[in-house]
């Protein structure tokens, strides 16, 4: 009697010849980290604007001291007399300082002197410049205020009831880890995307090309047939995961985030840990997608089901991410969410908690086994074979 290896061999051969399946499995895995790294690269640049910037100013003659102060702090001042609102909205300029004509008068009389900063708060690009200009003007305001108090014989420290000293203990790796959060999603999802075409082809596709009935009349237990098919899908899922992880690690060799004081790296050990961690979720991704596709009447129908399916295991991940929830013990009992939590800690350079790894893996494998049992039961059911 032959076993699941017969089916596995055939399905693997068949799938590896499916150029579209291979493309779908490999392409996002190659493109995505490059895109992501690029995205973070520019994000880092815009967040920490330390270079010289040019800021257009309306009415610079109204506050020459302030202009000097800014110019000493790497801000190039440029005279401006356009329509601020339009240029900001059309993204011609990021920030415009407006010093009204009554500024000088109010300032010299110690009245409330107003300065306008035109900006678009929804634009990430203008945020950094805006923040910097804001900070500098406030610093100037405080300096002048302190001097005024001293002139009146008052200790300027009276103004500071509390002073805050920032002691940030986050390491470079842990800061890099935060930036890598988006990449985790991608590595986590690789198993789903990478195995989808094969999951469909071995189930809904089998039915669409009418090859399911001829296959099932052969003397092989449903268990063997399903195991062979599942192993094929799993091979693609774990393959895509490995490709995505390696691609990410490679991307960080080439793309420097040092500008932000970060130097994220995925060491060989981290890559190995990630793959070990994600084997169970790749198992789950394969079986879950097969189960869904098994109910679809056609390849197309299965594709649209799988597009939605991805959100089910992802929902807890997104909720905890958006809600900014910290890792809690219960999270490691939830498949995919548990993997995501551990992935975070690996990528932050904090290593992998063995207890948590075991809990997560056990929970994920258990769910996989339940799904596989259902798959084996369904395979020779009339509903699946004849769609009845």
């Amino acid at each position, binding site marked *: 009697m032959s076993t699941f290896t017969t*089916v596995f061999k055939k399905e693997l051969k068949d799938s590896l010849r499916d150029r579209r399946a291979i493309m779908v499995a490999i392409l996002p895995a190659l493109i995505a980290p490059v895109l992501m790294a690029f995205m973070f690269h520019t994000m880092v640049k815009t967040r920490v604007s330390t270079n010289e910037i040019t800021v257009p100013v309306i009415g610079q003659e109204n506050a020459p001291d302030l202009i000097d102060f800014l110019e000493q702090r790497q801000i190039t001042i440029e005279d401006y007399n356009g329509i601020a609102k339009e240029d900001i909205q059309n993204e011609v300029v990021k920030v415009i300082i407006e010093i009204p004509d009554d500024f000088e008068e109010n300032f010299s009389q110690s009245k409330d002197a107003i300065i306008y900063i035109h900006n678009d708060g929804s634009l990430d690009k203008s945020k950094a410049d805006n923040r910097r200009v804001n900070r500098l003007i406030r610093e100037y305001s405080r300096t002048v205020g302190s001097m005024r108090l001293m002139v009146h014989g008052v200790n300027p420290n009276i103004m500071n009831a509390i002073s805050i000293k920032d002691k940030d203990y986050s390491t470079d790796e842990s800061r890099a880890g935060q930036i890598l959060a988006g990449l985790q999603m991608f590595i986590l999802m690789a198993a789903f995307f990478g195995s989808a075409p094969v999951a469909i082809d071995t189930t809904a596709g089998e039915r669409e*090309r009418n090859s399911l009935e001829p296959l099932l009349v052969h003397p092989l237990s449903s268990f063997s047939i399903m195991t062979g098919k599942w192993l094929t899908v799993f091979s693609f899922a774990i393959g895509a995961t490995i490709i995505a992880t390696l691609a990410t690690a490679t991307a960080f060799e080439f793309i420097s985030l040092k500008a932000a004081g970060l130097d994220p790296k995925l060491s060989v050990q981290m890559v190995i840990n990630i793959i070990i961690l994600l084997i169970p979720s790749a198992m789950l991704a394969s079986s879950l997608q097969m189960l869904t596709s098994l109910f679809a009447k056609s390849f197309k129908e299965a594709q649209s089901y799988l597009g939605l399916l991805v959100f089910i295991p992802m929902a807890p991940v997104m909720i905890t991410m958006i809600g900014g929830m910290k890792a809690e013990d219960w999270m490691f009992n939830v498949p995919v969410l548990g993997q995501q939590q551990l992935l975070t800690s690996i990528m932050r350079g904090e290593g992998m908690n063995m207890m948590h790894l075991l809990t997560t893996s056990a929970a994920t494998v258990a769910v996989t086994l339940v799904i596989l049992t259902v798959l084996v039961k369904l395979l020779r059911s009339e509903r699946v074979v004849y769609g009845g």
Partner: protein
Amino acid sequence: MIKVENLSKSFGKVVAVDGVSITAEDGKITGLLGPNGAGKTTTLRTIYGLQKPDQGQVSIDSINVREDLVAAAAKMGIFPDSIGLYDRLTSREHLQFYGEMHGLKGTELEQAIERTQSYFDISEIIDRKTKGFSHGQQMKVALSRALIHSPKNLILDEPTNGLDVMSIRLLRELLHKLRNEGKCVLFSSHVMQEVTALCDYIYIMAAGKVIASGTPEEICQETGDDTLEDAFVTLISSVEGVEA
């Protein structure tokens, strides 16, 4: 030997098969003849175990299909309603795969492929991927698939649909040869000439029931007609609501 006893199967309110009993003996070609929708395919699907009967028993060489499908499947060669080849595999790879599923390997498998490809002369397309095969070429691969393990029992659902004359002749000769070797052949058809030319024993089905059975001569005698075709029409029109 294939034995079907008192088989019934409904889909919702539609009764597809209603108390059918059929015996296909070894060393004989048994035909299942009937108009479209008579319940032939459902009966055959129940025999190879993918359709669950509401009632009744099916056994292959005294193995109950519902009790041990895998053991029963090993004794059957099946040409089902659907051809279903894999586009990206060659004819040879198909035969290898199905042969391996029947437990063949090594030289035994090689020999089986050699033997089977000679049946319908598919040596020209044996190493071609099946994508783009004509319907006839696909049929030949699917027929070879059913024969790869030299099954004791052969079940064919409308095996000549879309075959050219030469191939039909090849199939006919092959079935005669298999019968003479003592194999049990059961096939369904709605083509009269085919059944007349091939069958030793005939079951005529209509509206889910067997309405007549016997050798072609016996059936003609029963209705008093000269040809099987006339007998068929006489029998079918006696069943209410069925058009021949």
